[in-house]
């Protein structure tokens, strides 16, 4: 970008003014990424709508705002985090709670689970497991066009680290609860690294919540490595208030015969942008990228997916659905890239959206770049209203129109939710979605924020 925008300028200054404080808590290895990343950010800037990947999303409203920036946590903040309990009944998990991307100080910041799994602070892990960090950190989060990925690398202070050693199968899911809570408008960045070694298996649930009504901007980067034959599922549940903006960049790198599933469930939030990058780096790897969002009022939800079939005989499956009410807007951009030698590729993509009003708007853009011959590829996108025939069918059995509409919307959404294998979570999300579709606020019981 030739002329740096005012916004980019401000974030650049933020880096210059604070980098010494941020760097204090990190190892020299992690810090070694900061300066080059900052230069890339300074060059690329905060994406504008001129950036093809952000064509439908205007970040200005949230990026123009002056945040009381937040790099080092205050001890007092952790009271709420300590007290926070996820209220999903029967959800038996190994849980960690982060507040504004930081760890409560009372519990150990890094701890071991059965099977030699380690979860906790990335900064702590960088000191304890320098080899693992050096092998994976910064290897997968790459972008030639998105300055925000580099802004995160340059300035993120901490985040979640998960290491699952080879052959370890963890039946109980790991749940990471990201709370945002502050008396001041806050800008957050987390940096997460998940390593699932060969033949290992985990399920990771990431829940994003806001606890106070201030304006929030979060820019999170997650790198995930799946070794040979690894099997992992990442379910992200986003439930934040209308004054919160969440930008996530998830980079999933897979080795041969591994299976990965990413499921982004967006229940509520002011502006949400999820970028999910799937790199199929070994033969026989399979990846699934799913997403569901429900938007109303002036909310905006943008899902950007990039699947890179870098090796032969891999399978990918994208399914994204959206229900848009009021004057909400949404975007889906699904790219499938099949490299020249990636024969035997199966790549599917489906994006269906329901607009409940004339004012709601959805942009859907498939992008297929296929350079191999032996490829099976399909994509389909629909933007429409509820099916009148289906509505009449339900009514003709005695179900009233309002209820019938609800059933259809729920059925539409359930196609994504049904892929969640953790039953209590699936039931809970079904419930939250139903509440949301009924026009009730789908907040967890422990949430104090009156949003909406």
């Amino acid at each position, binding site marked *: 970008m030739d002329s740096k925008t005012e916004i980019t300028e401000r974030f650049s200054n933020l880096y210059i003014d604070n980098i010494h404080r941020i760097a204090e808590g990190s190892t020299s290895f992690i810090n070694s990424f900061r300066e080059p990343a900052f230069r890339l950010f300074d060059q690329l800037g905060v994406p504008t709508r001129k950036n093809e990947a952000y064509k439908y999303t205007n970040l200005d409203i949230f990026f123009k705002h002056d945040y009381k920036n937040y790099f080092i946590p205050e001890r007092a903040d952790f009271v709420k985090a300590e007290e926070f309990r996820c209220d999903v009944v029967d959800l038996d998990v190994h849980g960690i709670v982060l507040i504004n991307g930081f760890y409560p100080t009372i519990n150990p910041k890094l701890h071991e689970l059965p099977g030699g799994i380690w979860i906790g602070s990335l900064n702590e892990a960088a000191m304890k497991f320098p080899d693992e960090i050096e092998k994976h950190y910064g290897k997968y989060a790459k972008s030639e066009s998105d300055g925000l990925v580099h802004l995160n690398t340059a300035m993120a202070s901490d985040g979640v680290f998960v290491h699952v050693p080879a052959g370890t199968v963890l039946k109980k899911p790991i749940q990471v609860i990201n709370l945002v809570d502050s008396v001041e408008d806050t800008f957050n960045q987390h940096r997460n690294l998940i390593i699932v070694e060969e033949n290992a298996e985990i399920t990771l649930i990431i829940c994003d919540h806001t606890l106070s009504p201030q304006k929030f901007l979060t820019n999170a980067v997650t790198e995930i490595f799946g070794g040979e034959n690894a099997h992992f599922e990442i379910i992200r549940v986003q439930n934040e208030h209308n004054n919160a903006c969440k930008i996530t960049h998830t980079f999933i790198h897979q080795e041969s015969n591994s299976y990965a599933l990413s499921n982004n469930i967006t229940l509520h939030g002011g502006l949400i942008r999820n970028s999910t990058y799937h790199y199929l780096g070994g033969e026989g790897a399979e990846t699934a990228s799913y997403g569901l969002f429900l938007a109303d009022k002036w909310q905006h939800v943008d899902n950007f997916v990039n699947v890179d079939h870098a090796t032969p005989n891999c399978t990918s499956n994208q399914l994204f659905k959206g229900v848009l009410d009021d004057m909400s807007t949404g975007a889906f951009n699904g790219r499938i890239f099949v490299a020249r030698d990636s024969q035997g590729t199966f790549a599917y993509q489906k994006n269906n959206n329901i607009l409940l009003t004339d004012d709601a708007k959805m942009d859907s853009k498939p992008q297929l770049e296929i350079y191999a011959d032996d490829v099976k590829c399909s994509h389909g996108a629909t933007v429409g209203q509820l099916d009148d025939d289906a509505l009449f069918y339900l009514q*003709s*059995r*005695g179900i*009233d129109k309002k209820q019938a509409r609800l059933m259809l919307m729920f*059925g539409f959404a359930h*196609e994504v939710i049904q892929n969640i294998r953790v039953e209590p979570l699936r039931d809970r999300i079904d419930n939250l979605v139903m509440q949301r579709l009924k026009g009730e606020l789908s907040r967890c019981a422990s949430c104090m924020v009156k949003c909406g």
Partner: protein
Amino acid sequence: MLVINNLKAAIEGKNILKGISLEVRPGEIHAIMGPNGSGKSTLAAVLAGREIVEVTEGSITFFGKDLLDMSPEARAREGIFLGFQYPIEIPGVSMVNFMKTAVNEHRKHNGLGPLSASDFLKLMREKKELVEIDSKLANRSVNEGFSGGEKKKNEIFQMAILEPKLAILDETDSGLDIDALRIVANGVNKLRRADNSTIVITHYQRLLDYIIPDFVHVMYDGRLVKSAGKELAMELEEKGYDWIKKEVDIQD
């Protein structure tokens, strides 16, 4: 039970029904036959309350109540059931949830509380046997991935559960092989009672070998042009519809 009087209806400004009168009494089976495009399915749609059909003249009463005044769901709760010619696939909505909601709506209408989970499952089991529907179908999404025959059986299954006073079966026999046809017809016969009635809409006489009608009506160009007993169906099978068309055209 059902009285249709000089019913005229249009779809998107085009007149389809041009003055239909028909009375159905409890316990009767009426067959409505006729060539394609004669308005048979439109009549079924009007009875069930499809909004796309605009009634321009005439009246329909059901047990003395003005049917045209009711929403589709209200008609269903009063006891009208439409067996669809093309049952709709509804992904994500399970048969169980669909039928449970429907049954409880009917019960609410009749001043009853919702059925307990176990009673409902018992009801499903009983009716499944009655219509010889595969147990697995009931656990799937509504009609999703069902074969043509399974979809039609599923219509009869729903009818068995909801126990309507008046069932209108729109071309239920179309696309069915002989075994499925027999199962569907058996279902209808088993559900027959002295106080309920059926209107069978069909193009072919074949279904009427299994479901014996009390009355056969021929519809042509939006009118019921001929009514008689079951022997009329045989005559139509033999001679086709042309002779009726001729008769009508001469009168016009």
